[in-house]
């Protein structure tokens, strides 16, 4: 780790460097756009797709651009139950992003504490914690998540739990790696010389210097979590049908695919694609500008 940038709070130059890539600007705009849509879903969506009073089975399976029999437009068509696809997708974005964000933040918190403690304490604590991390990482994420959800059943809390379980080890290993480098630097020696408490050194001095790396890993992991949630929901293992994420919407449309009613699956899929790719491009770009040698 030789970068001078990574050890300070992002300097103005970092932002300028970040925006030098057109792809990064597009990705940032796309991703923030979806975040805004998720945040203001109830005010943006033309109808509440889960309020049965607003959904009419008479309007089921209408292609994009058609109108309901009462004259309301369905810009993106309707699904098998007559729900407006646009509204269903807006709410789906909300749930997908929520699951990805919440699981990412919890996993980040757990992984950070484990990684910091392992790096700072060293010795047998480090050995045991890292053995657990190695073991966890030796299993493919989808396998672990699959086993957990088969056991736990469906639910927002359950999928978040499963995603935390498969993600925390990545954060722990990354944070430990950075913290190991940081903990032998002069400023840590200086802090120790001032007889500051362990917790203060760990969280007040070492942690802030790990933040750029954590930000990059968190962005990438969030994209992976959203993708994994969509996959599990598609298999009918993730979220319950009452809280359809993008993955579940795609699964619903899968039944109509063979009959040429492509929009029910393809449109939520395109949104999912845009979210995941933009998050990955963002993460890539942040890694390049913050240069944390990942």
């Amino acid at each position, binding site marked *: 780790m030789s970068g001078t940038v990574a050890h300070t709070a992002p300097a103005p130059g970092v932002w300028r460097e970040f925006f030098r890539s057109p792809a990064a600007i597009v990705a940032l705009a796309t991703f923030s756009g979806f975040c805004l849509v998720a945040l203001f879903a109830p005010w943006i969506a033309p109808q509440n797709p889960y309020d049965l009073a607003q959904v009419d089975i008479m309007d089921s399976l209408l292609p994009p651009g058609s109108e309901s029999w009462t004259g309301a437009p369905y810009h993106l068509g309707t699904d098998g139950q007559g729900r407006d696809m646009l509204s269903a997708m807006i709410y789906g974005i909300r749930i997908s992003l929520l699951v990805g964000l919440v699981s990412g933040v919890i996993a980040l918190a757990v992984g950070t504490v484990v990684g910091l403690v392992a790096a700072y304490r060293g010795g047998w604590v480090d050995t045991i914690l*890292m053995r657990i991390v*190695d*073991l966890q990482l*030796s*299993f*493919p994420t*989808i*396998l672990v998540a*699959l*086993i957990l959800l*088969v*056991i*736990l*059943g469906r639910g927002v809390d359950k999928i978040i739990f499963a995603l935390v379980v498969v993600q925390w080890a990545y954060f722990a*290993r990354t944070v430990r*790696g950075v913290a190991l480098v940081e903990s032998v630097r002069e400023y840590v020696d200086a802090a120790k010389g001032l007889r500051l408490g362990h917790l203060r050194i760990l969280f007040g001095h070492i942690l802030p210097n790990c933040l750029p790396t954590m930000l990059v890993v968190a962005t990438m992991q969030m*994209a*992976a979590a959203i*993708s*994994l949630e*969509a*996959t599990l929901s*598609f*298999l*009918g*293992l993730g979220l319950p049908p009452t809280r359809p994420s993008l*993955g579940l919407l*795609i699964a619903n449309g*899968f039944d109509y*695919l*063979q009959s*040429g009613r*492509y929009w029910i*699956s*393809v449109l939520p*899929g395109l949104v*999912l*694609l845009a979210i*995941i*790719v933009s998050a*990955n491009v963002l993460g*890539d770009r942040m890694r390049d500008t913050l240069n944390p040698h990942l």
Partner: protein
Amino acid sequence: MTEFIVKRLLQALLVLAVMTVLVFFGVNVIGNPVYIFASSECDQPCLDAIIKDLGLDRPIWEQYWVFIGNLLQGDLGNSFTHGVPAMSLIWQRLPATLELAFCALVIALTVGLPLGVAAGLRPTHWTSRVIMGFSMIAFSVPIFWIGLIMIIVFSVSLGWMPAVGRGDTVDILGVDLSLFTLDGLHHLAMPAFTLSLIMMAMVIRLTRAGMREVLFSDYIKFARANGIRERRILTLHVMRNILIPIVTVLGMEFGGVIAFAVVVESIFSWPGVGKMLIDAIAVLDRPLIVAYLIFVVIMFVTLNLITDIIYSLLDPRVRLGGNSS
């Protein structure tokens, strides 16, 4: 060497033990299988009889020992829905899954390696950017989505490819394989390609990274200084060194491929073990679910073990205790 293998073997057994505990207690403590057997007019004595019959009246530890005892004899109980031993169902479905996974592996290597080499040789060329972009998309986009698009394009719109099922099979040494019939290959192409994408992306990245590292090493400089032809340097000196991480990662990822096969098999209605699991979950066929999970864990731990051993044979530094982290 022996010490290394024994140590790894013990580690693998420990992981297996932990996983059986997790799966057994997970599936058996949560939920009550009695109600699957009981009809609606089943009264308390009838329920008790079912509980006794399933051995659920005994302490959970005792149940676990019975389960382990049966497991060691290869008996994982009868499937609720099929009424036959769960293991026999898995053996029956496994060739289809393995065939799919094997083809995916072959596709990933035959496409991924050359692309990775090309990207590594000329990292700033526009072809490299396209290759790396493709690798990022293949790696990050959920494969069920890619499978779906392939069905829409090649089956529904163009009508070139069958969207569901496995084609004709031929009996080879007692195993039904579709790899050797035209119809079979026709059915196999889309699912195998879909499944191969993640591995392909990984092969491309690893090959490129390996190329960048190895090409600047001293022994390549010396090989070039000796006037050895570029082609020979690539195939002999470079390839040999970048294959080590690729073998390891692919070995470890093969378990992941079996897990991802669940997704691909569901999309393409491929009659393998993954599709079986999803069907079993839908009807709460607990013995079949447990059998599948235990089977996958055993297979995965074994694969990890074999990869570790092969790796240590290829690269002696590993068994000499050099911890990479």
